[in-house]
């Protein structure tokens, strides 16, 4: 299968039954392959809802999400999960499965019904666990891990799914500084060297500035800014959307963002 394709949102409008205001209204954006795109916006601006459209968890009447040329919802689940993997904000799994079991689950879309995990599957899972340094507790129960450890296991699982696209929903929210950098650097490296494509939902502008090369900013279910990170992370835009004034300093060619005061 062709591993080079864009993800395209076409006029997504989503309003859950019985609610007054739509979560997304007429959102269109093309996530280009080969980039790490930051999906930004205040709480409740529709970031996660947008990701869920790509995963075909929800459908938008009148809108469409395209994987390459085809509607995401038209793919059989196994085929779609060989193209997109997803790291949720927090996992509902509170289970007795071991870390290794959980990571191996990512190999499901490559298996026939009666097939068992092959040596190759185990090798891929081990490599993924090593990459995010969870290999040391591969035999521990997933349910017994701390929030940050779980988050890294979920990232290992997404890596083991070996997809051309990874959708990360606040992947570093539970991580300490070292692991935040480790994960983001890993993703950046995969994007630059292996042609991986990433969408990452984030709140930390310094991280976005350091690692992402594209950004799209949602507010109230609409796209209010898009382009390179330099074009989107502008004091005036941030002030309008987040209602916070930022001080911006420059060091080594990268900008640093300090929240100064409420508008």
């Amino acid at each position: 299968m062709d591993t080079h394709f864009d993800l395209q949102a076409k006029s997504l409008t989503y309003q859950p039954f019985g609610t007054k205001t739509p979560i997304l209204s007429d959102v269109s954006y093309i996530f280009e392959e080969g980039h790490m795109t930051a999906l930004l916006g205040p709480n409740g601006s529709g970031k996660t809802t947008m990701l869920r459209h790509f995963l075909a968890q929800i459908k938008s009447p009148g809108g469409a999400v395209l994987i390459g040329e085809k509607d995401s919802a038209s793919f059989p689940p196994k085929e779609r999960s060989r193209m997109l993997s997803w790291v949720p904000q927090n996992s509902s799994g509170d289970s007795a499965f071991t870390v290794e079991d959980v990571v191996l689950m990512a190999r499901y879309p490559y298996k026939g019904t009666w097939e068992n995990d092959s040596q190759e599957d185990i090798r891929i899972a081990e490599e993924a666990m090593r990459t995010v340094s969870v290999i040391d507790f591969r035999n521990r129960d997933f349910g017994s891990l701390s929030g940050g450890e779980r988050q890294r296991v979920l990232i290992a699982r997404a890596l083991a799914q070996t997809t051309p696209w990874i959708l990360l929903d606040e992947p570093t929210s539970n991580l300490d500084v070292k692991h935040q950098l480790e994960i983001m650097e890993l993703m950046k490296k995969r994007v630059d060297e292996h042609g991986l494509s990433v969408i990452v939902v984030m709140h930390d502008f310094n991280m976005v500035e350091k690692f992402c090369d594209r950004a799209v900013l949602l507010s109230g279910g609409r796209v209010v800014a898009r382009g390179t990170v330099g074009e989107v992370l502008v004091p005036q835009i941030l002030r309008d959307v987040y209602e916070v004034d930022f001080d911006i300093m420059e060091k080594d060619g990268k900008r640093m963002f300090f929240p100064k005061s409420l508008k």
Partner: protein
Amino acid sequence: MLLLLVIVVVWAAAVGSVSVPFSQSARIVLAKLPFVDAEEMLEGIPKANKLIIWNIRLPRVLLAGLVGGGLAAAGVVMQALFRNPLADPQVLGISSGAAFGAAVAIAFGITFTVSGISSIWLFAFAGAMLTMVLVFYVARIATSRSVTGILLAGIACSSMLTAAITLMMMWNREKLEQIYLWMLGSFSSASWVKVGFMSIVLLGALLCFILLGRDLDLLSFGDQEAQSMGVSVKRTRTIAVLSTSLLVAAAVSVSGIIGFVSLIIPHIMRMLCGPKNRRLIPLSLLGGAIFMILCDMISRTAVPPNEIAVGAITQVTGAPFFLYLLWKERRKGERD
């Protein structure tokens, strides 16, 4: 474990109001196998013993095993599907449906037997199947077939049916005892026809369960995560609920309502062999079979010539053991 099951089957067949030596029981069973010289095997065994073992005890023991195993396997699937350790096939309302069917047959005196199939059994199975259809229908129109929807529809239908059974029992007081005894569960009406019927259903359901084993593993992370890893969530859920329902309907219709097996055996097996459904389902099946055969044996032999309802035995023996396991698990948790 399979070996243990075979030993338990032969042993349970040997034990009863007429005691037959274990060796004779084993030889009678072996004689029926292909490639075994039956004449030689059965030499010196009284004809009465042969009759007791083959025609009375063995079908009963096997039926107990099939029902116990079936209920335990169904329990594993329910717990995985509802992501709830307390989920039980009974919440789907199927047991109440079967009881309702049986109660109708008993209360209105519809009793006939065609080639070993009694009317009560037929009515119980029909009741269970109709309830299953009803639950699905209600769940679909009311709640678009979510997991909770099925659960709520099951509970609603179940309590309506229980109310109907109570009314029937009130209006037919002379049949009250018979209906009540049926509901408590017993294998005393076992026959080879029932064994055959139960085996076929169990085999079919088991095939579905093993097929879905891996999907059920992934579903423990919730519908959305499972889907993102490639599981067809709706399809998996539909197949799982249908096959479990059918299995439970069959089990309840031949034996009455026997609680606790479907809840406790999966838990015990999970503690012993881990959460992977592909392994857990077959092991729970074996464990449930052994457990049920032993319980039925106690129910036959504890206070001869009367029988204790097997449902009562499963609860009495199961509950303390379950508490012990929970206590042990907690101790382990504190040590870690």
